[in-house]
């Protein structure tokens, strides 16, 4: 494909390199983007437009300028580093509507997790595996005690504040919670990628010193507040029970290991925390109606579907009754078109990286452990010098 400056042909780059670079994150299907699609059709692209496109898809434009041999060498080098970082990582996920795990997000979080574990002496987090072998009721108490969660306080809050209450309590205890964000160029802000991310589910990346939880939040419109709350508790059960369902190999492919069987327990414990059995026992002999389900969902901050699932598991209703009471599938609200104020760059970074990682990054920058370029890759996933300057200024460095 030719690269043009104005009407002049500057250089011809390799089609196989373009396809190779666009396939680094295959689930994003970047090759289908009109810019490249049109380029392949007409045989040329403009240099200036290539720079703009690369800024959108968060891939360095220089990569497209490599020869096939050099690209192979570069990708080999990157994969080698990833392999080293991924070799002993395990993760678990809560399946979402589309069952997608973004390799780009996993890549970013593992990079953050490794930065922390390689540079800081952190003792083993006592919650990792703490629920193994404990009876059901003891698990619930241990969980609430460990994170110092007051369920009455949690339930008294509006859903978003209730979620933030849990997140704060959990992060204080050394578990990093990363949340999907669209703003601030943290993830590519392009339509094709958005459609991939909207099917992204929550997951946890194992590390006994600093486990990482990822909540899709705003990048997955199906994740209503109540579902986010359930997902969060469910993923914490994965950590507490050491119940990791998948491993990731050097190519970021997830595979199921043979040790399984904890799925039901993870859901039962999640439900036991959010919707206590003492409460559902009270309705054992009453007529379970849709308004009652909605009432329980509202009070206990879980979705009506989760309430029905829990009632069926507890044999308060039959599975058939559950099917009949299921509400219609959730229709995500349309995003308001009015321009919303852009949050501070530190707010966005703290949300995406998690407050634990955010604090370690800032410490690393302050103490010179992290060089500017590496810091930008941890924070933004690419070099964004102006935003990085703003970031440093906002954290007072």
């Amino acid at each position, binding site marked *: 494909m030719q690269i043009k400056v104005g009407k002049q042909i500057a250089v011809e780059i390799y089609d196989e390199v373009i396809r190779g670079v666009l396939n680094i994150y295959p689930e994003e299907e970047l090759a289908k983007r009109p810019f490249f699609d049109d380029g392949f059709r007409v045989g040329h692209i403009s240099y200036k437009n290539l720079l703009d496109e690369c800024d959108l898809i968060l891939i360095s434009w220089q990569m497209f*300028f490599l020869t096939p041999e050099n690209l192979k060498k570069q990708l080999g080098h990157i994969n080698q580093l990833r392999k080293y970082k991924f070799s002993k990582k395990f993760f678990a996920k809560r399946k979402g509507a589309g069952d997608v795990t973004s390799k780009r997000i996993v890549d970013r979080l593992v990079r953050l997790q490794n930065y922390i574990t390689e540079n800081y002496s952190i003792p083993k987090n006592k919650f990792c595996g703490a629920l193994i072998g404990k009876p059901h009721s003891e698990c619930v108490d241990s969980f609430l005690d460990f994170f110092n969660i007051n369920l009455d306080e949690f339930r008294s809050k509006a859903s978003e504040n209730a979620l933030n209450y849990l997140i704060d309590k959990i992060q204080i205890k050394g578990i990093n919670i990363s949340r999907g964000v669209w703003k601030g160029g943290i993830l590519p802000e392009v339509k094709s990628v958005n459609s991939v991310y909207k099917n992204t589910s929550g997951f946890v990346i194992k590390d006994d010193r600093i486990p990482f939880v990822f909540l899709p939040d705003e990048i997955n419109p199906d994740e209503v507040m109540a579902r986010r709350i359930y997902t969060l508790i469910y993923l914490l059960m994965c950590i507490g029970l050491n119940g990791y369902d998948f491993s990731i190999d050097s190519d970021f492919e997830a595979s199921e290991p043979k040790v399984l069987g904890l799925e039901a327990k993870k859901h039962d414990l999640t439900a036991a925390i959010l919707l206590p059995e003492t409460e559902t026992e009270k309705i054992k002999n009453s007529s379970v109606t849709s308004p009652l389900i909605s009432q329980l969902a509202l009070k206990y901050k879980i979705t009506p579907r989760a309430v029905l699932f829990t009632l069926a598991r507890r044999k308060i209703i039959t599975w058939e009754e559950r099917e009949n009471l299921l509400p219609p599938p959730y229709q995500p609200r349309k995003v308001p078109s009015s321009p919303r104020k852009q949050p501070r760059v530190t707010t966005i970074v703290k949300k995406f990286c998690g407050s634990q990682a955010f604090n370690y990054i800032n410490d690393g920058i302050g103490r010179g452990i992290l060089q500017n370029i590496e810091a930008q890759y941890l924070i933004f996933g690419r070099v964004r010098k102006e935003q990085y300057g703003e970031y440093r200024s906002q954290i007072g460095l």
Partner: protein
Amino acid sequence: MKLIDTSTINQVLKNNISLREDYFITPDIEQEMLVALTILKKSIPSHIKNITIDNRFDEASYIKNYFEMLNKYGGRSFFNMTGFGDISLIALAKTILEALEKINRQALPLPGFLEQVEIYVEDGGLRKRIKQEVGSQIKLYKASQI
């Protein structure tokens, strides 16, 4: 025409050197400088200009040379995204050399801007690479000589 690298800009900023004529940098070097300047709360001195704003700059030729130099030399990392300023400076030096050679071939009088091309570079490895590409036709100076 005078070209400078990142270390020379640092030298200018560190020693508060007041420049009296124009010095050119590549887009990659300008990018590298932006963060350092934001942190230092300084701006690029007005006499330091991005080469792309100069109407004598042949961008197509520069891009062709960037492609060649990127694939010829190591020292740049796609993992940490470092070393591209150096690649861009070699590409720019080569672009200017080609312009010089074209003028010589056509036996045209040398335009004023190409009469004396100087590059200020501190890093020994980079000096060696520039020399390898442009020979002695472009004068090389150390950052401290600015």
